[in-house]
């Protein structure tokens, strides 16, 4: 009751890019990805945590990441995701688009 639909983030689709970027540094399980995102953004990024999992499924379906059972640092069984070659290419494409977009927005806003 009283539940309101929430947007995950301000830029639709950017969650996929952030996940790819995170995984390009090292292989991680779901909760690890979230922790990394929040720590590296100084808790500025508000992510509805549950949305991570549909995003992971989407990336896997596209063949950009691969999940396999493994162990977390504190030895719990979890699905560890790693980025694929196709995923790295996609990350390059998305980063380029993102840079273009932010530059354009910055220009409009007159900060540059």
């Amino acid at each position, binding site marked *: *009751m009283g*539940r309101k639909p*929430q947007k995950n983030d301000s830029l639709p689709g950017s969650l996929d890019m952030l996940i790819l970027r995170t995984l390009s540094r090292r292989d991680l*399980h*779901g*909760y690890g990805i*979230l922790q990394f995102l929040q720590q590296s953004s100084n808790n500025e990024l508000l992510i*509805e*945590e*549950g*949305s*991570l*999992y*549909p995003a*992971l*499924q*989407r990336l*896997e*379906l*596209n*063949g950009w990441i691969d999940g396999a059972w493994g162990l977390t640092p504190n030895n*719990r*069984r*979890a*699905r560890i995701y790693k980025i694929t070659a196709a995923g790295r290419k996609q990350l390059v494409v998305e980063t380029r688009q993102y840079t273009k977009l932010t530059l354009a927005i910055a220009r409009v806003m007159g900060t540059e």
Partner: protein
Amino acid sequence: MTRLWRRLKYWSNSARRDETLREEMELHLAQKAAELQSEGMTAECAHAEARRRFGIVARKSEEAREIWMTRFFSELSQDLRYGFRTIAVNKAFSAMAVLSLALGIGANTAIYSLMESILMRSLPVADPESLVVLNWSSRPPQNSNKDWVHVVHGVQGVLWPGSKGNLVSGMFPYRAFQTMRDGNPVFSTVFGYFNGQSRTVVFRGQATSAATVYVTGEYFRGLSVAPAAGRLIDPGDDRPGAAPVAVLSFAASQNRFGGPANAVGQSILVDNVPFTVIGVAPPEFFGVDPQTAAGLYLPLHTNLLVDGPRTARMYSDENFYWIEMMGRLHPGISMAQAQTVLAPRFHRWVDSTATGAERANLPALLLNPGAAGLGSLRREYSKPLYVLLAMVGLILAITCANIANLLLARAAARRREMAVRLSLGAGRFRVVRQLLTESLMLSSLGGVVGILFAVWGIRWLTFLFSKGQQNFTLHADLNWKVLAATAALSLLCGLIFGLAPALQATRPDVMPALKNGRAGGPRRRVQHALAVAQIAGSFLILVAAGLFVQTLNNLHSVQLGYARENILLFSLNAHQAGHRPPEIATFYTDLRKRLESVPGVLSATFSRSSIVTAGHAGPAFRGTMKAGTVTIGGARSLATGSRYLTTMQIPILAGREIDDRDQAGAPPVAIISERLAQTYFPNENPLGRRIALPEEKRELEIVGVSANLRNGGLKQESPLTVFVAVTQFSPERVTYALRTAGDPLRFVPTVQQIVREADSRIPVTNVLTQAAEIDRTINRELTFAKLCSGFAVLALLIACVGLYGTMSYTVARQFSEIGIRMALGAHRAAVMWMVLRHVLLLAGIGLAIGVPAALSASRLLKSLLFGTQPNNPTVLSLATLILLGAAILAGYLPARRASQIDPLVALRQD
């Protein structure tokens, strides 16, 4: 492609995927909670906070799942699984819904399929739409006017009423056929034919009887029929003096020669005239009259050989109407155009055959569509079928109302469930869709069972309609279009009445429903209206059934004046086998004595036609009979052999019956019925008086008086009857009647053997019991009474289910109210009465609508009734009683349930 591959892999182990995802999410929540706890939260708070931040777990996993499947299919499979569970749990509800739907769909499809096969199906020939039947219409003869003359001096065939009181017929003189055939600008072919009735045919030494059609040389070409073997009759075969050839029906070739190929070239005897089989018609071809399937096709002019040279007169007599015609239109020419061209042509010809006053009233040519062949069957059965169709339509409406009612009641009962699901985060669309899936599943299930009912129903109906008719050609098939239409209707009904409550139950404002699950609403009114409509509809069908059953009862209780049971009938035609007078009379008489000597046969006799058909079959002495100089009007004669009155158990009131003394050479005698005696010989003894038959030079001496009897149809009053000795009138075909001890059909093998010993060339035909022959004349009424009673039970059953559903729902709704009443001291009987009163009120309103509706609708049935009026009070009150009884029965269970509510339980709920 790789995406598709991954998807397929996913589907192949989707259960494990779901499990994996769940585990991942749980790990996430656990780790989050642990982290929060380490920051100083209590365990409880940490878990709640972790969940809050995560969002709705179920929805997220659904979103994740739908990445892989398209959402539609994943949810559909869920809905279907859930639907099956619901159906399995609510067995009674599901069974009622499915059964009533199936009955509605099945009955409709069956009746309509049969109707289509009778009323609309095309002949199985190429391009049937271009075929046209030639008829003529004319003002009917006026008996009162002695000077009235008509160009039609004789008709061999039927006339039927057309528009504006005119008489219509399809018979023409042969010259008219020639006029139409030769140089016709609008028809590519004109062909003629006439019914040769049944003939004795000897195939390979075995005598049987075959329905024969005489056809002109253009017949098969005009119909565009290709032979199954050999060749078909062509114009070269149809002229006087041509070699006698015959075409067999496919069925006859199979039954007699084991296949079409074997039949070609065989010799057969038709009434002792040798013919050569030149070909076989294709399997689906039955001629042009859907009512009878011909077994044998003969060239028209061979009737000179079969029926004797005296028939030559038929070809030259321009005032004797006997041949039927059809034409095939040239491409691009319409029937109306053909009518404009041919009507004047026919008029000119018919004018040339008329003399004097006959010109005042000439028949006019009338073209009719020939795609479906001749219309005799349609004329007889179209009205009954429309009545049946209206009834099953009503049943379908009742069914739909029933389904709607059940769904509404159930949706109301499930409001709470829906509210719970909505509040747990289910999307509204999702819930509505799930409800819809359920109702559609019920409807489809009903549809599938309905197909089974339809198939079974068609078989049963065909059997009912064909009973008593040989060569019934209607093989009604399941009509898929109708099935689709009725099924679509029931699906639509399920959709609408599933959707409306679903939308209402899933309004965003779910709180009231959660708070008190039994909130009613305007839907109760809809439910009540539906129940009332069902009751009114059922009442209509009940009344119709009552009227038809009473009609049947009246027909059965008609005082026939002769025996009905334990009489075996069969026909012989020794004339066709070559017996000639006076020997033929001796042959029949000797055979009678042999049959009477069979143990178990109490008496045997024979007559020119059977007692039931006498008067409307065979050449009878009709016209004016005279007693002295007084004309006896409207008397029917029955030419019989010895011991007829004894065998038929017709009481002899005075004198004697016809016996073996009355042979060809002896003085001619007659027996008259009581009514005739009282009318024409009042105050005197008729014995010894004389009467004269029409076309007879001799006078007959009255030797006996019989009781009255209703020969020639059950629906007519007993006619004035005169029995004469058939042996004194050179019989051709006769019908034997044996009065037996026990089941008459037991004697059939004995009879066949005796006849074979007497003359193996004579086939025994029309074997049946007297009771069966009497029933055959009321076959339509019999069929109707059976069908309508079945329909009435069906409608009543469905309406009861509907009423039961409505009342169960009402009781469920008033659960707490009843609890309070009982807590306050209401008696169980009072509670029960409260519910029953409600039922009776609904039934009462239904009747208030149904009675006037029945009164006005049943008037349409008048022509199908006998001995009863459409507004028969007995039938109406009986129907009312049955309906009220059924309503109380349907209300009893919910009422009892209401009376057994425990006030404590009821008050604690909600």
